[in-house]
């Protein structure tokens, strides 16, 4: 697995760091340096709050290599409160029914390990709110 690719992606992957368009204020994730709305240059870093809600989801029982120790797991499209849709695994779900609209928050967890000797890869997942909003 390409160690250098993990390294380049770490800011967005560990902490949901994206971009904000300086022209139209659209928040961008993942970062792509060009605003999807107005097409102009957008390179200003933006730290997402990590809060959002489940937009859609599916349960994975047959996992790709490196993820097999975590099966079954749920992957969701999460609508971040700042706008973008993000694909991520849901975690800390036990005995909890996932449903569309479930409020979730970002946590940083182990995404995969490249065998016993490889690198541990960390990144964002989402979980049901630890403390329901007051």
């Amino acid at each position, binding site marked *: 697995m390409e160690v250098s690719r993990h390294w380049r992606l*770490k*800011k967005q992957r*560990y*902490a949901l760091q994206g971009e904000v368009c300086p022209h139209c204020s659209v928040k961008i994730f993942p970062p792509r340096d060009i605003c999807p709305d107005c097409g102009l240059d957008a390179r200003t870093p933006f*730290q997402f709050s990590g809060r959002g809600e489940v937009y859609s989801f599916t349960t994975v029982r047959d996992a790709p290599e490196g993820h097999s*120790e*975590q099966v079954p797991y749920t992957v969701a499209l999460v609508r971040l409160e700042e706008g973008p849709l993000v694909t991520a695994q849901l*975690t*800390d779900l*036990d*005995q909890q029914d996932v449903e569309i609209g479930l409020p979730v928050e970002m*946590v*940083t*967890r*182990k*995404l995969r390990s490249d065998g016993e000797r490889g690198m*541990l890869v*960390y990144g964002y*997942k989402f979980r049901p709110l*630890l*403390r329901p909003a007051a």
Partner: protein
Amino acid sequence: MEQSNQDRLLKPSKQVGIVGYGAYIPRYRLPASEVARIWAGGAGGVPIVEKAVPGIDEDVITMSIEAARNALARASIDPSEIRAVWVGSESHPYSVKPSSTVVAEAIGATPHTLAADWEFACKAGTEAIQAAIGFVGSGMARFALAIGMDTAQGRPGDALEYTTGAGGAAIILGPSDESLAHFEGSYSYATDTPDFWRRADEKYPEHGERFTGEPAYFKHVLTAAKELMSLTNTGPEDYAHVIFHQPNVKFPQRAGRMLGFADEQLEAGLLVSVIGNTYAGSPLVGLASVLDIAEPGQRLLLVSYGSGAGSDAFSLSVTDRLVEAREKAPSTQDYIGRRTEVDYATYARYRGKLTLS
């Protein structure tokens, strides 16, 4: 003439305090009765009610990140102002490659920072606090982050398996006048004592049965507490809360009584019966639990213990700022209350006690 002992008191030239703190405890719980069911046919007493177990995607790095984010929320500071990220643990995921750099990156403290992992059995977290007091108190840094976090492991069937838990806390140290609680003084005590060890390539620790009680835990904890109280002219009656390292319920309770504390003074910081022994996390998560309820003006005593062996003791005084800050992140009880019970088989899977290939 005999030299004064007063120079044993550790006190920086600038006053230092805790500007933010945050706990983390994973959501799974293994009841001690479940361990007894597997290994003792359900017979005999159990030392605690249950212990916290990390999820399959959690380790010291992910748990430290969440605790640090909670501490940052309470401190309300820019993470790029943190000049040291220090993680104390017995269960760093890598043998070589620091946990602290991942934590520092994830919370936004990189790149203008010192990052290091600390090791001293169960007192690795308070070692990091002692060093951070010096780092901030000398004026070298405005803020430093000290973490104590563990995912403790006991050999299946060993007495330790009832209690080896997971959890800990992160503490951000900074200038006293911005603090939620400030350090009045601290003291450290260490001797070479062979009570507990794990060789470099071994998964589970060994313990010298005869050594764990009197010459190890009690000698170091009692001496550190007595010395610090003597050096600061305080006594048990001056402390609203006292937090000891807690490998089980009996040791800290007995240490408290021997020092003249009432059981009520230990109550808020004694979590071992519901989360287990969280090793390097133990004294710090106890402190976090006390900071969740302590009142301005109250004095706190924190005493750690690490096998090998040593104790660090701290006297803290709570400020007015604590009351507002503590609402800004989940409390220790929020994590304790978030509870999913698992059976021994699930626990074995989560903790990698089964070999799949």
